[in-house]
């Protein structure tokens, strides 16, 4: 069974997961999600009790292999089409907040 975790550990976990998922969370939200994540982990732990030794994991429900492109080229989207839902764009480019490599 899972060791009970302190509230601090839980909120640190949640903060880490939120950071990885690029989600800005308020303190109130952190508390809510900590509790929810706890329940999810409990559920996963319950599943983990099933003995799956020697059972191949399923990664896809369709048991097919080697599906490839047909080789023909399709008409790409035009820049106008591609950019039509972008909040900000300029000269054919999508514009985003500055990302600097240090």
């Amino acid at each position, binding site marked *: 069974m899972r060791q009970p975790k302190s509230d601090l550990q839980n909120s640190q976990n949640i903060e880490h997961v939120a950071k990885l998922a690029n989600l800005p969370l308020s303190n109130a939200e952190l508390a809510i999600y900590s509790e929810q994540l706890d329940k999810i982990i409990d559920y996963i732990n319950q599943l983990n009790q099933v003995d799956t030794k020697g059972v191949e994991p399923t990664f896809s429900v369709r048991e097919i292999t080697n*599906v490839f492109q047909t080789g023909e080229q399709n008409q790409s989207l035009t820049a106008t089409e591609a950019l039509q839902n972008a909040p900000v764009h300029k000269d054919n480019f999508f514009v985003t907040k500055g*990302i600097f490599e240090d």
Partner: protein
Amino acid sequence: MNQDGYELVIGLEVHVELNTKNKMFCNCSTDYFGQPANTHICPVCLGLPGALPIINHEAIQSCMKIGLALNCTVAENSRFERKNYFYPDLPKGFQISQYRWPLCTGGWLEVSDMNGQANKIRINRVHQEEDTGKLTHSNRNSLVDYNRSGIPLVEIVTEPDFHDVESVRDYAKKLQQIFRSLGVSNADMEKGDMRLEANVSVRPVGSQELPDYRVELKNINSFRFMVAAIEYERSRQIAALEKGEELTQETRGWNEEKKETYLQRGKEEAHDYRYFPEPDLPELQVASQVVQIKKEMPELPEAKIRRYKQDLSLPQSAAQVLASDSNLSKVFETALEISAGKLTALTVANKLINSQNGASLLPEKVVQDLLTSKEGLIEDNNEISKLAQEAIKENAQVAEIYRKGKLTAIQSLIGVVMRKSQGKADAAKVKETLEKLLNSES
């Protein structure tokens, strides 16, 4: 400070963009170079919701060719996985890559170190993935072009088997030659077709253990800078160890103005990619295609060098120059064939190596020029006869083989005479003289 008491331990990751017609997981054209931004894109490579990827077979075949050229085994079962991280050049929020089930594993490549000694570098894996879009920085914004998003990319990972910069240089050069002779990539470093990352640490000479840290040198887009960064790291890390400092896992870049590496990301910020199998792509079972692919693979530079030396008696240096450029070797072989025995391999080789643009010369013209310009040619029968006698005397075994009936052995003797005359002897006369001598002495 004793720099000599330490040795470098380096592992390399090389990314190479394939030159397939289509992108990796969609039918967009890859022919985007010099084209306006965001004109070679579709819902798949833009990561629009609901878009489904389909694997490009041509890319998988190229990836297998690279793996086989590096003496890898093609996996019976191979799978794609999602590598999750957020960056504006990655529209889906994950890159489709391979992690636990790479296409090719367990190979090697022989490289020369700083003492000219040959060492086997173990290849851990050769796997298939996709490239990201391209960011340009403008004022306080970043501009994103997704034309490159989804271009097939192959990653080649070595074991930490490099101990000097010369080996790294030789490895990169050999890989580039392999990509070009396989025809799978232009492998142009300046254009970003081929990118290098190095994991660098140092350890006391004699130690067999891997250091418990490694510094990742990343985003260095020139080979010269990579070499400079490795040299810099060597000194920096040794100085730190001598001072009793502890080195940790980190990512560093190269500052060309200051000629030093700088911290990009520390250990605590290390990425957590949460790989998991890509549910939208079926498993690959392509090991059975290996036989066919091997048949389609051209002769690789190493094999070509061996053949030029053994069958055509070229010296190592000439064989190397010719084999390193597949266009040049094509001109060479065609010219040699056209000359139909009237010119020696060495004469043709020298002509091409000494031309500034040997690879773009017309083979017919090369032969014609060599045959018509008798300038500087040694035609004196006595002189040629003297050299031929020397050659036979010094290569008695080869002469014996010829006399026993293996007539092609004469090529090797012609090569010796041509070398003695520094390529100036009239090849037709050399052949004639040798034949006369060999047949009369028997």
